[in-house]
C-alpha cells in the first residue's frame, strides 16, 4: 500500500517536473533576407530582452498560465506605438521600470517583443 502511494506520488512529481522543463523555447520570426550573422545578433538581442521582460515587465504585463512564457500577445501596432512613445520620451519617463532602463535595454525588450512568434 505504501509503495503504491510512493509510485503514484513519483508519477505525479514526474508529470509536474516534465511540465516545467518542457516549457517551449521562444521562437523568433526573422525575415528571410536577413543575413545569418545579423540573424544571430538579432536573436541574441531578443534573448536578452526576453530575460529582462520576464524579470522586470511580466509582473504587471504578463499572463500567468502554466507552460506559457507569460508574455501577452502585443500586436505589432501596439509595440510600434510604444517604441515611438519611448523615443519621444513620453511613456518611459512616467513608467516606473522603463525609466530606469538604459537605451540598450529598452531596445532589447522591444526587439524581443517584436520578433517573438506569437500564438
Amino acid at each position, binding site marked *: 500500500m505504501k509503495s503504491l502511494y510512493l509510485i503514484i506520488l513519483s508519477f505525479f512529481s514526474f508529470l509536474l517536473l516534465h511540465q516545467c522543463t518542457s516549457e517551449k523555447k521562444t521562437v523568433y520570426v526573422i525575415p528571410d533576407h536577413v543575413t545569418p550573422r545579423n540573424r544571430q545578433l538579432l536573436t541574441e538581442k531578443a534573448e536578452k530582452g526576453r530575460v*529582462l521582460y520576464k524579470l*522586470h515587465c511580466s509582473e504587471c504585463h504578463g499572463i500567468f498560465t502554466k507552460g506559457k512564457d507569460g508574455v501577452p500577445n502585443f500586436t505589432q501596432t501596439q509595440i510600434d506605438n510604444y517604441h515611438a512613445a519611448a523615443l*519621444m520620451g513620453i511613456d518611459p*519617463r512616467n513608467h516606473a521600470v522603463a525609466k530606469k532602463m*538604459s537605451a540598450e*535595454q529598452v531596445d532589447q525588450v522591444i526587439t524581443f517583443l517584436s520578433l517573438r512568434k506569437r500564438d
Partner: protein
Amino acid sequence: MKTFLVILILAATVCCFSFSLRHSTQYKQLYTSSLDAYRNDQEQLLRLIRSSDLTKPDDLEKIREKIAANRIQLKSIDFWLRYFDPISYRKENGPLPVEWETEVFEKFEMPYRRKGAGLSLAEKYMDERESLNKDSLSQLIQTSIDSLVMFKRDSVMMQFASPDHFFLANRLYLLNLAAVYTTGFECPDTSRIIPELRSLLPAVRNIYDQFATDFPSTPLSKNYLELYDRMLAFVNSQPKQFSLFDQFTLIRDYINPLFKHNQQFIRNYNVLSISFNDYALNNETSSIFDKSLFISQNTKGIFSLVDDPAALGEVKRVGKLLFYDPILSGNNKRSCASCHKPTEYFTDTSVATALQFEGGGHLPRNAPSLINSVFNHLIMLDGKHISLQGQAQDVMTKHEEMNSNEEELVKKVLTCKEYRDVFKKLLKLTPEEKNISFGHIISAITYYYADFSYYYSPFDRAMNENGGVSNEVKQGFNLFMSKAQCGTCHFVPHFNGIKPPYIGSEFEVLGVPADTAYSRLSDDKGRYDANPASETLHAFRTSTVRNIEFTKPYMHNGVFRTLDQVIDFYDAGGGAGKKLDVPNQTLASDPLKLSSPEKGALISFLHSLNENVIFEAPPSSLPVSSDKSLNARKVGGEY
C-alpha cells in the same frame, strides 16, 4: 405670479449657464485671441514690407518699428508657443537661419536640419544693406505667418481641457527667464531686451489671472503670485540698459524661488506631461542650480536596473580600479587616468593635446575634463557619441589612443582574480547577459567617474541657499549674461551648450586659431566629421565653464594657456574678429569692447564656478593577474 416665477428661475438658470460657459473658456480664448492679434500684426508687417521702398531710410525705419511692435505682441503668447511647439516657434523668432539638431529623443537618428524664420532674422537681415531684397525679407515673415497654423492644431488645442500643460509651460517660461530672455539670445537689438522683458512679465501675469478663473481647483498659490508681483516691481525698478541690469538678484531672489513653487505645483497636482519638452526635466528638484535639474546621461549603463547599494558600491570600487588600470590598453601602459588625471579635474593641464598611443606626436584635441561631462546629451567635442559608454569604448579600441580590442581586453581583465570575482557576482544582477562582457567593464568605469560631477561651487550655493557673493562676482555674472554675451551660448545653470528645456546639445563656430599669433584657423573640422554640412564646418560642442581655473589649456586644441587669452579672443569677436576667414562663424564678429575691470570681474565670476570637488587618492595597487607579464603594470599607466 407663478408663471412669472418659473420664467424668472428659467431665465436665471440660462443666464448662469451661459455665463459659466463663457467663463470656463476665458483662458483658452485669451490664447486664441492673442494668437490672432499676432497674426494680424504679422500680416500688417508683410503688407508694409511689400509696399515699402527698401532704398529709402524712412521706409526702413517704419519696418523696424513695426518689427519691434510685433515682437512685443509675440511676447504675449511666448509663454504658450515655446512650450506647445518649440520647432515651429523657430519660424516665429528663430535665432539662426539654419540649425542642426539632435535632440535627446532623436539622437538615435541623423541630425535634423531646421530652418529658422521670423522677427529676429528679419531684423538682422535688414542690416545687410548690400544683399537686402524685398522677396527674401517678405519670405521670412510669410513663413512665420504660415507656421502659425501649427499652434492651432488639435493636438495643441486639446491641451486646454486640463491644467497640466499650464504648469509645464510655466516651468519652461521660468527656466527661459533665467537662461534666455535676459541674454539677448534671440533679441539682436540689445537696447530692447529689458523693455521686452517689461512687457513679457505683465503679459504672463494676465495669463495667470485667466488661468485662475478657468481652473480654480489647481491655483497658483498666493505666495507665488505675490512673489511674481515683487519680481515685476524689481524688473521695473532696474535700469533699462541690459549691461547694468542685476540679473544675479533677479534669478536668485525671484526666478529660482518661483521655480521651486512651480515644481511643488507639478508634484502636488500630479501634473502629467505629453510633451517632449519635459523629457529631460526632473520634477523632484527645487532649484535651477540643483545638479539633478535634468537628466542627460545614463551613467550606470549595463547596471541600470541594479538598485542594491552594496552591489553598486562594488561596481564603483571596481570602476575606480579599472580607471587607473593600464590593462585596458594594447601595451598595458596607458589607462584612462593617463589623460584624465583624477587629481586634475579629470583632465591633463600639462599639455595642449595628449600624446598618441605610441610615439608619433599628439592627438588633435585637448582631453576634456570628465567632470560635468554627464550633463551633455552628445559626447565629445564633435558630438560623435550618444552615450558615455560609447565614448569609453571608442577610446579603448582606437588605434591612436589606447589601441586595444574588446575581446582581448575582457580576457586580460579576467586574468585578474579580483576583477573576476567581483564581475562574477555582478553578472548575477544582469541575468540578460550570459558572460562578463565589455559592457560590464565600461559601465563600471562611467559609473565611477560620474560621481565627481555632483559637487557644487560657491556660486551654486549662493543661488541655492540665498547666499551672497562678492560684488565683483555679481558684476561678473551680470556681464557674462549681458555685454560679454557669454550667456547666449553657455546657458544657466550648467553654463554649457544645453538650453531650456535641456533636451539638446548646441554647437558653435568660433574661429579658433591654430596658434596664438592667429596665423591661420585650426584645421580641425569639428562637428563636420560627425555631420558634414556647411554650417557644421569647424563647429564644436559648447563646453561648460565650470572649474575653468583648473582645466587649462582652453579650446578644442588647447591653443590658449590662460583665461586672459580666452577672454581677449572673445572680446575681439573670435576668429573673424581677428581677421581670419570664417564665413560660417556663429559668434558675432563685432568686438565686445570690454574694459579691463570688466574682464577682471568676468574672471572673478568664472572662479566662483570652481566646484569643491573632493578628490580621492589613487588605488595603492592594481589587481594581480595570473599572467605574470601583466603584473609589471603601474597604477595609472606610464604615459
